[in-house]
């Protein structure tokens, strides 16, 4: 009986393996765009936080359909559900199944296969013909579209800007100095003073890694891009450079003196933010614009109007700038399926959402619900708190025909300031799309760097071990990645 059972299982395994088709998914071949039709053009759309049963998503879809119909474009949006869980993973699985919607929102980290598998439409010709989309694109958007013309994301760069409470800043003498002349030394003095004067537990907290500390200090120490050009004209990975070594030594000093949160490695976003609101941390970094706006609202709500936030500039040193902006591709955004039969209609949705009417709907919601017009001014209601833009986050081309009521601005003054400061101090990075066959090596070398950096900062290792780390980094796959970088970066 046992033999029969074992043989059956083995046979079943062989059979299932052998019978598997080479072609797990079938999709329709890319078709010509927009077949003539009298009825509405149905577009399938998949996006994050966009479930079909969400009342706000329903309102948005209805608003888009009605708004576009008024402009003579009869479309119907059909929301494709994704399984609950991490959006990027679930979207990847959805697309693998061969179910490719016309309009796809990619969250980030989930589209490498789309590059190799050519499932996305080149949006360049559509953008060239557009009016509203073009007007809403930043210089970074344009650069990214040149390098990777498949994702469109009309949003401020997803980069962090450090902020401090105004009342805490005012208590320090070094605060004014740091705003006027943000050298590394002045920053160090400021972090020390702002902690002591306000009885904070630590000056700076970050969530899990050093990225949000690099926002201030990276460029000042000379880490001006992912790949640094050496004296011999060859590129080296910046994390293995002398600049990085110096930077890590400084971070270790901040950690040792209690200026950097001793538990930053285990902090999550929520606990990091809580530490800031509760007065444990004096400075945190948050994404410029909308996130700083949320921080400001929560901070003033909890600690009073004087606790409004002040964005801080990046430190000056060998260079000055917030974390360099990766222009190799959009990190997220909307794409149109290469297999879509209605590509023009799909792009017209993006174009409509970038128009003034579309932006009013996307950013503010429905009049009478999320906002009202009082004395010819836009007054946001309580319902607005649960509304957020899905298509166009940037305010670059957002010009409502009415002013906002001063009591309910679209973005608070600190949030606007953070956008301005980032725009004036943003620089371009030279990172590139890592090819699939180097993905494992890149992962290994990156993991090695992260571990080493954490050990140096927390005092388990010193910068004396740096050369050994570089050797290990090269052996872990960094050498091959560097060779590829030198061939790729122009």
């Amino acid at each position: 009986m046992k033999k029969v059972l074992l043989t059956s299982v083995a046979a079943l395994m062989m059979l299932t393996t052998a019978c598997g088709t080479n072609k797990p998914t079938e999709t329709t071949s890319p078709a010509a765009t927009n077949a003539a039709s009298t009825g509405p053009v149905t577009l399938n759309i998949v996006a994050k936080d966009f479930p079909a049963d969400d009342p706000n998503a329903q309102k948005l879809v209805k608003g888009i359909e009605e708004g576009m119909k008024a402009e003579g474009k009869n479309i119907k949006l059909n929301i494709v559900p994704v399984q609950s869980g991490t959006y990027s993973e679930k979207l990847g699985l959805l697309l693998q199944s061969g179910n490719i919607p016309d309009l796809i929102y990619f969250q980030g980290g989930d589209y490498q296969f789309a590059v190799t598998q050519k499932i996305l439409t080149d949006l360049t010709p559509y953008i060239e013909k557009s009016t509203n989309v073009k007007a809403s694109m930043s210089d970074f958007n344009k650069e990214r579209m040149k390098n990777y013309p498949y994702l469109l994301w009309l949003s401020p760069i997803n980069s962090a800007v450090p902020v401090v409470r105004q009342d805490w800043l005012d208590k320090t003498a070094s605060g004014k100095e740091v705003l006027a002349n943000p050298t590394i030394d002045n920053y160090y003095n400021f972090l020390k003073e702002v902690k002591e004067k306000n009885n904070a537990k630590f000056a700076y907290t970050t969530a899990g890694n050093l990225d949000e500390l690099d926002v201030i200090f990276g460029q000042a120490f000379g880490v001006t891009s992912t790949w640094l050009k050496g004296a011999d004209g060859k590129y080296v990975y910046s994390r293995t450079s002398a600049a990085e070594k110096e930077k890590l030594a400084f971070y270790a000093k901040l950690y040792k003196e209690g200026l950097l949160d001793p538990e930053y490695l285990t902090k999550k976003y929520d606990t990091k933010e809580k530490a800031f609101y509760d007065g444990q941390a004096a400075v945190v970094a948050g994404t410029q614009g909308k996130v700083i706006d949320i921080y400001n609202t929560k901070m003033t709500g909890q600690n009073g109007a004087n606790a409004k936030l002040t964005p801080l500039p990046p430190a000056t040193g060998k260079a000055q700038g917030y974390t360099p902006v990766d222009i190799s591709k959009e990190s997220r955004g909307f794409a149109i399926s290469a297999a879509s039969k209605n590509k023009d209609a799909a792009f017209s949705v993006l174009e409509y959402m970038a128009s003034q009417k579309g932006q009013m709907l996307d950013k503010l919601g429905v009049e009478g619900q999320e906002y009202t017009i009082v004395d010819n001014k836009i007054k946001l209601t309580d319902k607005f708190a649960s509304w957020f833009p899905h298509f166009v986050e940037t305010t670059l081309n957002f010009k409502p025909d009415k002013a906002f009521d001063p009591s309910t601005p679209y973005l608070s003054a600190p949030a606007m300031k953070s956008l301005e400061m980032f725009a004036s101090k943003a620089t371009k990075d030279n990172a590139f799309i890592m090819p699939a066959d180097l993905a494992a090596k890149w992962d290994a070398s990156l993991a090695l760097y992260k571990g080493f950096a954490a050990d140096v900062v927390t005092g388990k290792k010193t910068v004396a071990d740096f050369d050994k780390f570089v050797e290990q980094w090269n052996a872990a796959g960094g050498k091959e990645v560097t060779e590829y970088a030198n061939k790729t970066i122009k």
Partner: protein
Amino acid sequence: MRSKLKQMWTDKTLYFMLLPGLLYFIIFHVWPIIGMKLAFYDFRIMGNNVFVGLKYFRELFSTPIFTQVIANTLIISAMKMFLIFPIPIIFALMLNEFMNGKFRKTVQVVSYLPHFLSWVVIAGIWFEFLSKSTGAVNALIQLFGFPAHDFLTDKDSIRWVLVASEAWRNIGWDSIIFLAAILGINQSLYEAAYVDGASRWHIVTRVVLPHLYVPMVTIFILNVGFIMNAGLDQVLNFTNDSVNSQIDIIDTYVYRVGLINGQYSFATAANLFKSAIGVTLVLSTHFISKKLTSKGAW
């Protein structure tokens, strides 16, 4: 064969009840084996997959981090298997010694609760518990004059944290099967032992424990099959840059390189390798157990 079929027909109701479970395993565990062939192909969403032979296996074994990942998986799994395995048995034996039924039930229910919490919640509890600045454990350590220790970022401690949190989560739940086995022991055996003058210790060692051998061996062999599953959710929630090198396991590696970076064929190759080791270990353990104790998983 005919008599066996006849017997099956007689027990048709039982076999009918087996059907949903059988279907579940066919649909969710046997049928996906087809997908394993992806390890030998370059996946294409549009068009045919391209056969690449052992390309992804070669890539897997040539990645320097893979050896470390395998070692981490085996070490963490072995620690969990050998250190946690006796705990539910001891716990079940201890619960059985409680005469007060209400107290026993309360302890049982409380011990089950963590099993129903997600690892996100459990990690949050343990982070608070082990926090260097505010955690109860460090408060206690400092009370005895020792310096506070950051268990969560210390390479030497983190695997023990994984083992302890896993034990805390599953002690109650895993003890159910042993409690059930204990409750199934014929009362006359206890009575006979008492008549012979046996103490409680004798009853535990001579009556109760022998009845737990079969479930113990079965569960141990099944656990061996899961040796390559060191706990994806748990590790993802407990990891940080400082300790990742100590607890990066095959599942987290596959998740990171395969799912996050969209390298599905590579991830499938890693998973297939993992499954092959699991199957080999189960068969070997079963064989050894049969030879040594004449008891096996089937």
